[in-house]
């Protein structure tokens, strides 16, 4: 049955969502277990596939059995149906997305019950649909199918954000406009590729695009490429399309933010990588001498801007949102360095950052659950109230800063190495700057949360009662934080067995 595993990854959350939607009307208590089950199945399949792919290479799956068919007028066979592919480029991401989604689903239960009391009928279903959409974007081998999955993820995230009431409606609306613009640009880009390539299958496109370019560069393919990249940038909140993200994720309910923030942007980055590396090729990217520097400058700008604004914010969620914006800059920059360490860094950071952001939002969620809000000034004494949460928070921040041996250190390592190899020093400077800014913020929080209150252990000082988040939230948070260290220690294995093989063959030493 292992050949059916790729589709199981998608079907798990998809069917779970439908069942959860039924259960919402009959036995509301059942909808959450359905979703957990679906995500667990999906995670198990994804995990199994990691090993299968590491051993046996890419796994292709043809929906409806419509695979390679010989077409009389063409020399080579084409895939006439829709293909989904699990290969070295996406297998880690699939495991990360489904794993993080599973943990977040366990974690979010309590939050949903309190924050959204009485309104959560479709929350679980939308949650599972979002995950199905994200997994679909990551797994599909068909550029149009990717668009449909993109819309599935987008529509469910609009709804998940709008659960936040108040300002979240406008935030969600802005996201909808930007997101639809991104999706439309992407769709238009598909049109431009389709008009030259005549197929939508990614593998087939990667085979024929070089032949189309044989007689000189094709303007249509170039325009299509630019449109798709712009569309992906809008989706991932890359500078200068980042405007929607901070409000959307800040005013969303914590439960929604904790699944959206780590996964949505990462998956969009993956889509960009897939288009850049598989549909087009590394040589094509390196041939775009006009665009490459622009993309790199924009990445630097994203990192600098994200860092700067995170310093000026006083709300913990807002700070975290600006972190996301600068982290997106890391990955786009790494991808556009288009050399071996840069791409390795971008691919590794894809997984590492998903885990880091997830841990960060989980920790923030625990704080919000107990303290009601996350203004910096409210954090006084939080280290005594919630020691475990804050320990996880500190580990996560250390990872974001890039303290070894957490995973953040290694992604930064590869990215800086790539930038140094390409001689893009402004990118190096931006990476270091963002590390420093995060360090400043971490220690500002430590000062407020730990040092600004009279130490309760000293006689005469008021005691600060322990008020830790419930275990169902605490355990996923702690697990995620430990995962960051584990991921860091496993870097070499991941890079050697999987990421190195995802790199384009042209970069092999």
């Amino acid at each position, binding site marked *: 049955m292992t050949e059916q595993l790729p589709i199981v990854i998608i*079907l798990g959350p998809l069917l779970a969502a439908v*069942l959860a939607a039924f259960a919402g009307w009959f036995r509301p208590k059942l909808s959450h277990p359905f979703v957990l089950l679906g995500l667990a199945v999906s995670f198990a399949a994804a995990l199994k596939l990691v090993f299968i792919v590491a051993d046996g290479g890419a796994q292709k799956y043809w929906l409806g059995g419509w695979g390679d068919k010989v077409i009389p007028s063409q020399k080579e066979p084409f895939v*006439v149906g829709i293909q989904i592919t699990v290969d070295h480029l996406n297998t880690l991401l699939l495991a990360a997305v489904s794993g993080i989604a599973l943990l977040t689903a366990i974690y979010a239960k309590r939050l949903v019950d309190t924050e959204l009391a*009485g309104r959560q*009928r479709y929350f679980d279903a*939308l949650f599972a649909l979002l995950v199905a959409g994200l997994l679909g974007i990551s797994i599909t081998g068909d550029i149009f199918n990717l668009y*449909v999955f993109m819309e599935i993820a987008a529509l469910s995230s609009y709804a998940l954000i709008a659960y936040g009431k108040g300002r979240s409606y406008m935030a969600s609306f802005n996201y909808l406009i930007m997101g639809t613009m991104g999706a439309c640009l992407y769709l238009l880009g598909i049109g431009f590729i389709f008009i030259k390539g*005549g197929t939508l299958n990614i593998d087939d496109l990667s085979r024929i695009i070089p032949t189309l370019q044989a007689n000189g560069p094709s303007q249509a393919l170039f325009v299509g490429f630019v449109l798709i990249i712009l569309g992906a940038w809008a989706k991932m909140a890359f500078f200068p399309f980042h405007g929607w993200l901070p409000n959307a994720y800040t005013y969303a309910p914590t439960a929604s933010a904790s699944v959206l923030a780590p996964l949505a942007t990462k998956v969009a980055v993956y889509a960009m990588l897939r288009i850049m590396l598989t549909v087009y090729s590394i040589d094509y990217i390196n041939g775009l001498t006009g665009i490459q520097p622009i993309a790199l400058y924009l990445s630097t700008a994203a990192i600098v801007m994200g860092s700067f604004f995170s310093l000026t914010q006083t709300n913990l969620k807002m700070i975290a949102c600006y972190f996301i914006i600068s982290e997106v800059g890391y990955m786009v920059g790494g991808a556009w360095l288009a050399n071996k360490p840069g791409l390795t860094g971008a691919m590794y950071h894809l997984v590492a950052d998903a885990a880091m952001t997830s841990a960060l939002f989980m920790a923030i969620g625990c704080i919000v659950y107990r303290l009601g809000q996350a203004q910096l000034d409210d954090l006084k004494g939080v280290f005594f109230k919630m020691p475990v949460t804050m320990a996880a928070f500190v580990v996560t921040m250390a990872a974001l800063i890039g303290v070894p041996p957490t995973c953040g250190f290694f992604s930064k390592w590869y990215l800086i190495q790539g930038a140094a190899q390409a001689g893009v020093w402004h990118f190096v400077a931006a990476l270091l700057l963002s590390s420093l800014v995060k360090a400043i913020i971490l220690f500002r929080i430590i000062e407020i949360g730990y040092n600004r209150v009279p130490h309760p252990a000293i006689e005469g000082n008021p005691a600060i009662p322990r008020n830790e988040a419930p275990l169902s939230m605490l355990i996923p948070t702690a697990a995620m934080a430990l995962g960051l260290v584990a991921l860091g220690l496993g870097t070499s294995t991941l890079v050697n067995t999987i990421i190195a093989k995802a790199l384009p063959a042209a970069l092999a030493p």
Partner: protein
Amino acid sequence: MVLFALISLSIQNLMGAAIVFGAYSFMMCLIWAGMGAVDVAFTEAAVGAGVSTVFIVSTIYNTSATMRSRPGGMAFKFFIGVVVTLAGAFLLSALTDFPDWGDPNSPVNATVVPYYIENSIDDTHVPNLVTSVLADYRGFDTLLETTVVFIACIAIYSILRIETAKSKTDETEEGITSPPSYNPSDSLIVRQASRFMIPFMQLFALYVIAHGHYSPGGGFQGGVILGASLILLAISFDLKFLLRHWREKSLMLLVASGVFLYAAVGLACVFMGGNYLEYGILDSILPGDQAMARSHGILLVEIGVGITVMFSMVAIHINLASNGRFDRGL
């Protein structure tokens, strides 16, 4: 057409803008029909010109049609205008690289498409190529598309309905302009006319779904028409009349069951030992050979699509028209 687009954007009254937009969509579907894309035109007529316009109108009905224009902001608009013009020029720069318009040997028409045209009959016994490609060759897309409709439906329900159901008591305090009370006797003619029309519409829609194999149409088109018939019912009578027949709960359950039917058919193929959505493998439980099984599979999923689309459209309309209160509205 460009003119219509511009007018609908420049009209100061939103209601007018919506109506002009409807006219624009209608023109668009004529053009598509002219290009041989009958199914697309069909759908656009029902969705773009019909349902979309009704959605916009009912939103406006619930809020306000007047647009407050404010001074200033011209520089911003101009700036965006420049950016957009540049983008347009960039898009047009690829024109020289395009194959000629209507060239049957362009890559789009000559790469994978001939396979569908030549093999559809042998593979599926379905002469309507659009249906066979839609529900079989690219059936996964269609499953997901149905899911999109389902998501939109539950998203709108979550945004409008659940919120409102909870805060029903504060509603009046918040000072929401309650919609003008509706007087059914105003439109006796409309009512009688629709009472006459609706059965025919529904009959036609069922035909569209069932006969989608042989003529333009299929789950989407049929579903949208069915939905539209109910929407018409709601408009000409009132929402309560509709809700007497279709309770909220059953509406929402039916929306989900359409997706479920589709996904379950796919899953059945997996259990029978094929790939997902490989209807051919169902020949052991469905009558006929593999190709016939595909044909039946297509019919099944089309019904699923129809159910979801129909009830989604109705549910979305009810939500939008009544601002989630499910009592009265447009």
